[in-house]
C-alpha cells in the first residue's frame, strides 16, 4: 500500500505538515479558524508530530503497519486493520480512552486527544480528494506518499 514516508535528511522542522493536518481535519477547513478557534476550543490536534533532536527533525504519524500492535492491543475494537485499503482505521465512537494502543505503538504515532478520552491518529486523509494534506503542504518534499 501507499504510505506516507518522512525523510529526515530534508525535513526542515517547519511544522507546516502539522498545520495542514489540523486544517484537513477541521470543520471549517480554514487554517486560521482551525488553529485558533477549533484547536483551542475543541482540542483539534494534528495526527502528525514533528520530532526534533539537534539539527535533525522528522515528521511522524501512524505507519499503518501490516501487523499493527495497536490493533492487537485495542480493548474495544476501535482500531482495526482494513483489509481492503490496508489502513489502520480508528472508530472514535468505540474508543474508550484506555491508552493501550498508545503504549503498544512502537513508533509513538498515537497521541492523546488534549480534551477528551480519545486518541488522535492519522487516517491517511482517506476522504481528502488531493490525498494526504501533509504531503501536499510540505515545502521541501520531505514527505512522500508512495509504495515501497
Amino acid at each position, binding site marked *: 500500500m501507499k504510505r506516507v514516508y518522512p525523510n529526515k*535528511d*530534508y525535513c*526542515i522542522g517547519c511544522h507546516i505538515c502539522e*498545520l495542514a493536518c489540523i486544517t484537513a481535519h477541521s470543520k471549517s477547513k480554514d*487554517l486560521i479558524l482551525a*488553529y485558533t478557534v477549533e484547536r483551542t476550543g475543541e482540542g483539534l490536534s494534528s495526527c502528525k508530530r514533528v520530532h526534533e533532536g539537534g*539539527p535533525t527533525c522528522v515528521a511522524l504519524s501512524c505507519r499503518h503497519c501490516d501487523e499493527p500492535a495497536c490493533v492487537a492491543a485495542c480493548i474495544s475494537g476501535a482500531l482495526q486493520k482494513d483489509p481492503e485499503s490496508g489502513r489502520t482505521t480508528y472508530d472514535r465512537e468505540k474508543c474508550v480512552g484506555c491508552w493501550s494502543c498508545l503504549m503498544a505503538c512502537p513508533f509513538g504515532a498515537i497521541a492523546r486527544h488534549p480534551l477528551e478520552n480519545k486518541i488522535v491518529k492519522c487516517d491517511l486523509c482517506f476522504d481528502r480528494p488531493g490525498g494526504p494534506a501533509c504531503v501536499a503542504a510540505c515545502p*521541501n*518534499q520531505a514527505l512522500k506518499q508512495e509504495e515501497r
Partner: protein
Amino acid sequence: MLFQPINRNYHDFSIVRDKDACINCKVCIRQCAYEAHYWDESRQKVMHDNAKCVGCHRCEALCPTSALLIQKKQSDFKDNALWKPEFIKYIYKQADTGGVLLTGMGSPVGNIPVYWDKLLLDASQVTNPSIDPLREPMELKTFLGAKPVKLEFTKTKDGSPKLKTKLSPNIELNYPLMFSAMSFGSINFNLHVAMARAATELGICYNTGEGGLHKTLYQYGKNTIVQVASGRFGVHRDFLNAGAGIEIKVGQGAKPGIGGHLPGEKINEMVSVTRMVPLGSDAISPAPHHDIYSIEDLHQLIFALKEASEYRVPVSVKIAAVHNVAAIASGIVRAGADIVAIDGMRGGTGAAPGMIRDNVGIPIELALAQVDQRLRDEGIRNRASIVAAGGIRCSADVVKAIALGADAVYFATAALLAVGCTLCGKCYTGKCPWGIATNDAKLAKRQNPDVAAKKMVNLVHAWGHEIEEMLGGMGLNSIESLRGNRDKLRAVGLSDTEMDILGVKHAGR
C-alpha cells in the same frame, strides 16, 4: 529603545505582520536564521525585531497564512544627491566596527548601465523568413574548445573521405549554457549534488569552483568542469582528470584582484576533506597565482594541466572583466587556453568587500564585445571559445551575449534564484536562510537536491525554448549562426563610443 547603539534603528527592513491573519504558529520563528522573530512569553504571541531582519523573505515565503510582509524601511534621511542612504549607513557601520564592509550576492550599484537593456534584437520580416522552432529543427548544441583552421581529408580504400586533421578536445553542450563556478563550501553539498544532476540531465556542464570535488560527485564528471584557483584547494591528479574540462581561475568578476575567502565556520568535515584544509580553518586563496606572473607563466600552467590530463580535455582560463581585457584575452589564447571565460563586474559572489564588488571591473557586455573583436582581428578566434559570465539574467541576455561574440554563457545567480535565493546578500555570514550559501546542517537541508535539481532543469528548459523562439524569429536555425552576429543587435540610447566598443549600430539604422 534603551541601551542600544544610536544607529541601530536605521535598519533596512520592516517586518509587517497582519494581526488578523497571524495565528502564532511560530513557522516564521523557526525559519528566520537571524532570529528576527521570537516568541514573547509574557504577551503570548510572536513578536519581531526589525533591526535583525536582512530582507531574505524566507518567513514571508513560508508563513502559512500569508500574514507577513517584508518591506524596505521607509523612514529616510534628508534627500541628498551625493550622500545616498547606503553611503551614510556604510559610514555609521564602519565607524562602529572599523572593518571592511563585507557583502555577498547582488549588484546594488545603480548608475552603471546594464547594456543588455540597451540592446535590441532583430526579427525577420518579408525579405527573409522566420522559422517556427516547434515545427522545424533548431540547433542549440555548442562545442567549447579550439577549432581547427582548416580540415584535411584523406581517401580510404573504398574512396570515402576520412578526416586527417587532428581535432582538439571539445566540451559538448546541449545548450549554450553552463552553471558557473560556485565552490563546495561557499555553497553546500546539496546544491553541488543538484547542479551535478541538473547538468547531467540537461547535457550541459557545471563548474566545481575552487573548492575541489566531493568523491561522490565524480560520477557526474562528463558534465563537470573542474577549477584550479590560486589556493589550489582540492586539486590533485584524480580531480584534474575527473571532469570534461579544467578551468584556471585567475579572477572573479565580483572581486577582481582579490582571492576567495571561505570563513572557517563554513569548513565542516566534508568541506575540509574535499578542500584538503584543516577543519574550521579559514580557506583563503591568494590574490594572484604565485606561479603566474606573466603570460609565459600562464602558458606553463596551462600545459602542466594539459599534461596532467593527457590532453584529453580543453583548458579554460577565467578572468574578471577589467581594463585592457581584450589584450589580456589575446595573451591567454596565445598561451594555449582552449576557452577564455570572462566574468563581468555584476557577477555573484559568496563574500566580497562591497567597495570592490561595486567599483572594480567593467560590465561584461563591453568586455565580451572587445575580446571577440580582438581575437577576430588577430585571426585567433578559432583557437579558443569565449564564455561570458557575470550578470546573465534571462534568455534574452544569453542571446545578446552570443550575438556579441560569446560561444556560451555561465550563469550562477540565476540558478540560485531558481532554488529560492532572494539576493539578500548575506552569503558571507554563513547563515543563508534559504540553505544555499551555508553549511550549517539545520539550514543546508532546506535545499532538497531533488527539488533543487528539478528547478534548475526547468529553468534551462525554459531558457532553451525562449532562445529557440528568438533564433527562429531572426530566421536562424542554429546558435552557431548567431555567434558574433552583431548585425542582429541594435542599441538604444548609447553614445557613439559605447556603440563602437560594442560593435553595434543604433536602432533605426
